[in-house]
């Protein structure tokens, strides 16, 4: 079949080129890649190579003509072909759909969407307009372009790939949604029909192949329901709440002294020792009342400021992480908090917490100091707006006054993770500063 010789496009934005000279002429035998003509674009003159080896024929544009790019300018005939073969391709080209429409315009009188006078129903015009279609491109089945013609045009625009592969509609949908080619799937159904499970199987194997991790031997630990819940909630929080984290170092000398004082008293009275966590619950409770935005939750179109202060304390148990809640912590004194905390912690370790013990938290404290961690960032426990991560107390030299005196002090690092949808840096800083002042001057809190 004769090879059409088209005006090449040299530049991204090039629309046309001018033929400067034909170096070969009709009837010349040309080789693939051989320069046949020179053209000029807006920028430069360029030699145009032949697209094929054969006889140059049917030159359609002469020197000096301006030709749009991709337009056929000549044909290259293969051995044994004549210019009659060129006519043959042209007539085939013309029977293609777009041309067809133009032809039918000329040939028949009742299909008459002639330029400038397009017969279309108002609905069809509106639809074409809304879809940004050139209505003259739409060929009607009847005399006028109707709604159905526009719809047909729209559906034909992106022809549906008809596959000869047998598959159920559900399998096709799942494959399409996951960008999987049905040809790569072996169907388990009757006569090899691909069913939904076949596609799902492929999806599973693809996702495990990607990491290669499936090749490594492993033990499988099924998730307990508590693990699943933690996983889902942490995922949700990490995904939905934009976390910011602020860290402070606090001198706990006075706080530790106050705690020792309490514990001496407690020992004499046979009461349990006050833990650092209990002290922090007391101080945090007080600070939350002063900073209500921290004690809140983000909802879709509002922030709920909670009217109670319920502080959860993350607790490690043999079953996993649980967060028992100290309800109304702002109204409790330190020994009430301490004994509540001891009770909750003991029951948590014995797996004896009931639902009420772990519900209704408005803020969480997570303390890993006893495990030797200096500082860490915690993930907010949703729907709460912030969580305080407590590190260990380290004795460190620090400057204690304006005269650069250095003393060794017990220092504690606190990191607040906050939901930035509710809490901005300044609000978080104020809250942390309140905690710092509470820790540094604990006496006024510890009545």
């Amino acid at each position: 079949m004769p090879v059409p010789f088209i005006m090449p496009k040299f530049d991204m934005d090039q629309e046309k080129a001018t033929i400067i000279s034909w170096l070969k002429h009709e009837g010349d035998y040309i080789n693939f890649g051989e320069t046949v003509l020179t053209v000029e674009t807006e920028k430069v003159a360029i030699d145009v190579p032949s697209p094929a080896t054969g006889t140059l024929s049917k030159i359609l544009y002469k020197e000096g003509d301006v030709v749009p790019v991709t337009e056929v300018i000549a044909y290259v005939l293969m051995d044994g072909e004549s210019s009659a073969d060129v006519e043959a391709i042209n007539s085939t080209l013309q029977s293609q759909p777009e041309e067809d429409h133009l032809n039918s315009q000329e040939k028949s009188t009742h299909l008459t969407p002639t330029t400038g006078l397009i017969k279309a129903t108002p609905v069809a015009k509106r639809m074409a307009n809304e879809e940004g279609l050139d209505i003259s491109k739409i060929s009607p089945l009847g005399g006028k372009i109707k709604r159905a013609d526009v719809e047909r045009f729209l559906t034909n625009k992106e022809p549906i790939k008809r596959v000869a592969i047998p598959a159920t509609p559900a399998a096709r949908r799942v494959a399409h949604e996951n960008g999987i080619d049905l040809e790569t799937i072996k169907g388990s159904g009757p006569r090899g029909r691909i069913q939904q499970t076949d596609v799902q199987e492929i999806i599973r194997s693809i996702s495990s192949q990607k990491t290669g991790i499936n090749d490594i031997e492993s033990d499988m630990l099924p998730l307990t329901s508590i693990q699943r819940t933690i996983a889902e909630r942490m995922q949700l929080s990490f995904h939905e709440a934009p976390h910011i984290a602020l860290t402070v170092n606090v001198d706990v000398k006075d706080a530790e002294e106050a705690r020792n004082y309490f514990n001496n008293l407690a020992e004499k009275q046979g009461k349990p020792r006050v833990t650092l966590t209990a002290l922090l619950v007391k101080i945090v409770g007080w600070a939350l009342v002063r900073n209500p935005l921290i004690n809140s939750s983000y909802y879709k179109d509002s922030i709920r400021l909670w009217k109670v202060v319920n502080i959860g304390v993350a607790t490690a148990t043999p079953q996993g992480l649980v967060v028992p809640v100290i309800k109304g912590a702002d109204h409790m004194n330190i020994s009430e908090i301490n004994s509540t905390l001891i009770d909750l912690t003991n029951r948590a370790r014995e797996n004896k917490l009931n639902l009420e013990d772990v519900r209704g938290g408005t803020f969480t404290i997570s303390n890993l100091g006893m495990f030797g961690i200096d500082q860490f960032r915690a993930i907010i426990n949703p729907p709460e707006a912030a969580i305080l991560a407590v590190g260990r107390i380290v004795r460190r030299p620090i400057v204690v006054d304006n005269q650069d005196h250095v003393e060794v002090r017990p220092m504690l690092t606190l990191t607040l993770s906050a939901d930035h949808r509710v809490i901005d840096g300044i609000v978080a800083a104020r809250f942390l500063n309140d905690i710092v002042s509470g820790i540094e001057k604990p006496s006024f809190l510890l009545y």
Partner: protein
Amino acid sequence: MPEISYLEAIRQALWDEMKRDERVFLLGEDIGRYGGAFGLTYGMLDEFGPERVRETPISEATIIATAIGASLLGMRPVAEIMFMDFMLLAMDQIANQAAKMRFMSGGHTTIPIVIRMPGGSGTGAAAQHSQSLESILMHFPGLKVVNPSTPYDAKGLMLASIRDPNPVCFIEHKLLYKLKGEVPEEDYVIPIGVADIKRAGRDITVVANNIMVNKALNVAEKLSKEGIEVEVIDPRTLLPLDTTTIINSVSRTGRLLVVHEACQTGGWAGEVIATVASSIAFDYMDAPPRRICGKDIPIPYNRGLEKASIPQEFDIEQEIRMLVGGKI
């Protein structure tokens, strides 16, 4: 809640509604002294008298024509066609008169009649007394076609049918008459046109009517022990058909089986399947939609052949196994 039979539930609905609304009256062949061919109206003549429990000659056309005439004058007749097969004698009255008068009068009149008609096989009554002709009735816009499968639905739908301003064909099944179930004594209405999911399941949707609902439920119970969860939908009303419930169900289960006793060719299973296949549920279907229906033959007199001519539990079970197992 008291347990009564399907037959008693329908009688209770008729009885209560006749007490409540003096426009309601019964007419039909042998419904008075004899109490009807199945005894459904037994005792009603004594209670309501011959004015309201009217014996008619053996002319179905007359029965329906009389009911239509009475309804035009403000009455609410409940006509009985002794066997559904005989409705064909009254078809002009049902399809050309009752179904169309409201439309052709521009809404100036309504035809609030109920036509009770027991259908179905299983009693050895042969080809002229055993048919399930509900699909024919579904082809006449203007009619409503109601088809309960439980005593509870039967009472609630009968009350709804009598109170409906349109002609309602109330199809009963002979083999269901003795089926017992809990039925409240008080007045309640089950809306016409609302399907009921008789059993929820995730693997396949089975749509069945009247006695086939009960067969499908038995199969579902059996397969459930093997982990195959069958959803059984009883449309309860065939016209108008609650397509939304069916389409939603198939979108969840991905598989559809329709079961009816009526002959397959031209039967309403085709309507359900076409509706689902052309709906949003199509993209969720993981198996071809299928039907199990009565064979395309006159119901045989021979009891063995009679049984073989309509879907049995074994057939339903096999079909579900094939569909759920991806073998069809």
